[in-house]
């Protein structure tokens, strides 16, 4: 079990951090977040893909990637989470790439992964969240057509390729059936995208509505195990993002507590503030340990991944929001203003907590994987 980074990972973190500090300062984050129709900076994306090679990190070399691991993706996600960079990285490199890899469909992988790996294709995948209605798929000649809504898809407007999970209509019994994954061309007929109002302005989401939309089946007709693995990997990557955001929140408020004076003293000298910051630091120390462990498990201990992923999301959702909230509150009135960045992290934290499903679903999954359900 390895809980500290390799030298290479530290270098990757430093390079990514430096790149984002230069290309994605908070002023730029806000500009993109507040401009309708703009969801990320294509220049930054090109440089992330080209100069830094971040988009193909965990994609095997045979599909045009660098063949590194999920630990490296976690390093990047942590920096993106700290910087709040608006980017389709999670949608394309984490969600879409991992589901394609997990589906084990050689032809589709060869077709679709190289573009994702070199950044020329932005893909997205709508993670199936417990409780959501799924679209239905029907065989139609050589291919399939899709029918029905997908409630939430990240970055669907930027995407050149949309992957969705759908139930095969012919195999449905009692209203549910196995899920299969389909690749959809965003320009395909019968596809309507509606932008949703998101709490987190840095990460746009869309509702899709299919109406006889042609789609390509990827992988087996029961993609259950592949989806599970892809979702576990997404849970780990998201946890890294959450860790990065959490650390930034704590750093920011600690810095402020050393500068802000009230009642003739630095506010950080008041135990009311100091003890809360100490508790937040304890949360961060635990969070980092869990995220490092989950990232290690993703690459090195596939048998531990299911528990590690559920652990990571069960812990991080709550922990990040708590720290982001306390950081905002401890800033006092200024933390409530639009101009201050605290609310951006607060909103990201809450959105992240719910991104892969409500917290109770992660906890229930953890209980199940720990063998508590008999």
């Amino acid at each position: 079990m390895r809980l500290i980074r390799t030298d290479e990972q530290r270098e990757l973190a430093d390079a990514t951090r430096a790149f984002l500090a230069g290309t994605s300062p908070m002023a730029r984050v806000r500009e993109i977040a507040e401009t309708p129709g703009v969801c990320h900076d294509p220049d930054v994306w090109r440089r992330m893909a080209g100069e830094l090679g971040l988009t193909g990190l965990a994609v095997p070399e045979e599909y045009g990637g660098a063949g590194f691991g999920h630990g490296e993706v976690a390093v990047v996600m942590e920096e993106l989470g700290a910087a709040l960079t608006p980017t389709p990285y999670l949608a394309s490199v984490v969600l879409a790439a991992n589901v394609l890899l997990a589906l084990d469909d050689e032809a589709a992988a060869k077709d679709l992964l190289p573009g994702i790996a070199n950044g020329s294709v932005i893909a997205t995948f709508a993670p199936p969240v417990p409780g959501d209605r799924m679209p239905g798929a029907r065989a139609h000649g050589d291919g399939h057509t899709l029918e029905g809504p997908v409630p939430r898809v990240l970055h669907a407007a930027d995407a050149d390729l949309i992957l969705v999970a759908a139930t095969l209509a012919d195999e449905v019994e009692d209203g549910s059936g196995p899920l299969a994954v389909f690749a959809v061309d965003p320009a395909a007929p019968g596809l309507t995208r509606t932008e949703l109002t998101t709490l987190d302005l840095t990460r746009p989401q869309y509702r899709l509505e299919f109406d006889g939309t042609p789609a390509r089946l990827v992988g087996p007709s029961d993609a259950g195990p592949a989806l599970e693995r892809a979702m576990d990997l997404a849970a780990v990557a998201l946890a890294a993002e959450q860790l990065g955001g959490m650390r930034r929140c704590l750093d920011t408020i600690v810095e402020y507590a050393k500068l802000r004076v009230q009642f003739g003293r630095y506010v950080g000298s008041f135990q009311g503030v100091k003890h809360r910051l100490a508790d937040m630091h304890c949360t961060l120390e635990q969070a980092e340990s869990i995220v490092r462990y989950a990232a290690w498990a993703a690459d090195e201990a596939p048998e531990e991944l299911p528990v590690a992923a559920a652990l990571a999301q069960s812990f991080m959702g709550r922990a990040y929001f708590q720290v982001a909230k306390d950081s905002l509150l401890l800033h006092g009135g200024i933390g409530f203003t639009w101009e201050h960045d605290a609310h951006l992290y607060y909103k990201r934290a809450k959105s992240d907590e719910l991104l892969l499903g409500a917290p109770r679903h992660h906890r229930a999954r953890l209980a199940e994987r720990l063998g508590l359900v008999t």
Partner: protein
Amino acid sequence: MTDIEEYGRRARAWLETATAGLPGEPGLQQAREFMARLYDAGYSGITWPEEYGGQGLSVAEERAFQQAAKDFALPVGVFGIGLGMCGPTLLSLGTEEQKRRYIRPLLRGEEIWCQLFSEPGAGSDVASLQTRAVPDGDGWLINGQKVWTSVARQADYGLLIARTDPDAPKHRGITMFIVDMHHPGVTVRPLRDMTGESHFNEIFFDDVEVPADQVVGGVHDGWNAAVTTLLHERVSIGMGATRTERPASFAGVSRRAAERGLTADAAVRDRLVDLYLRERAFDLLNARMAQEVKAGIAPGARGSVIKLLLADLTLFGADVAAEILGPDVVAHDGADAALARALSWAPGMALGGGTNEIMRNIIGDRVLGLPREPQVDRDVPFRELRVGTQKETGK
């Protein structure tokens, strides 16, 4: 039927008629007209002295009116600061001329008031304010900045505190003024908060002249005046709490959860129970304190308990609603807009009117009688004091 009951009954009858023609969202002009009618009917300033335009009645009548008014949506929000804080401060500390000049128009809704205490550099430590007032001929010249001011855009007058003696310790060199908000040196700028909307304003004062007779409560004695005003604020924030709208209420969230079939999950029910426990505990405490007040037990600093618990409940409710109802709350097509907004609005309750830390200090010091924190700034001349945001320099 007692006289008081009869008074309440008549008030209710009047309110029914008076509110009948009001639109759903009355504009400022309609609010002013309503306020004038309220005044003319004798329901504005019920306990305020007759000589300044009040009715000179007892708190019994006031309470009977409030009881009756609870069931009506009165368009009086814009007058709240004036009626709840500025007016009472003037009645306590104002000169005879000030009371004669300002109280009646305030009660009739002809003149709107705001309160100008908070500053960006001061925060919870209100007395560390840096807005300066320097003698200028017969009057004063004011320069500085205030923040978190409600109704500033509509206000005709503001009650402002400014530093008049920077060589005195910070609580002792402050003076309170009545400021004309229409003075050309006053700039009001809406402050956008984390909801994306503007509920408050920043106000900039640039060589604003204030005549000497607009000082309230004595030169350099403005801190005591401000404390008078703030006590009214704490009571009004605290006691009106039950009427505050709570979109993330137990009833609302559990109804939505049931509609979506989520209450079949024991984990969802358990979280709803958490929300119920906090909400019910809060409501029952509120009700008990109201009964105690009626029985003659002054709430004193216990208003801070209500404030702290309400801040906590507001945050918890918004949080748990999202946790239960799931991703739709944070990415919605309008259906869950109120809950999404509750998440953005919730921190405001913990920050406005004193942070949680300030509330805990008040409860510790004044309710539990604990020994005070050593105060390092009490006897230091203000100009030697560190204030606002600055680098540590040894210490």
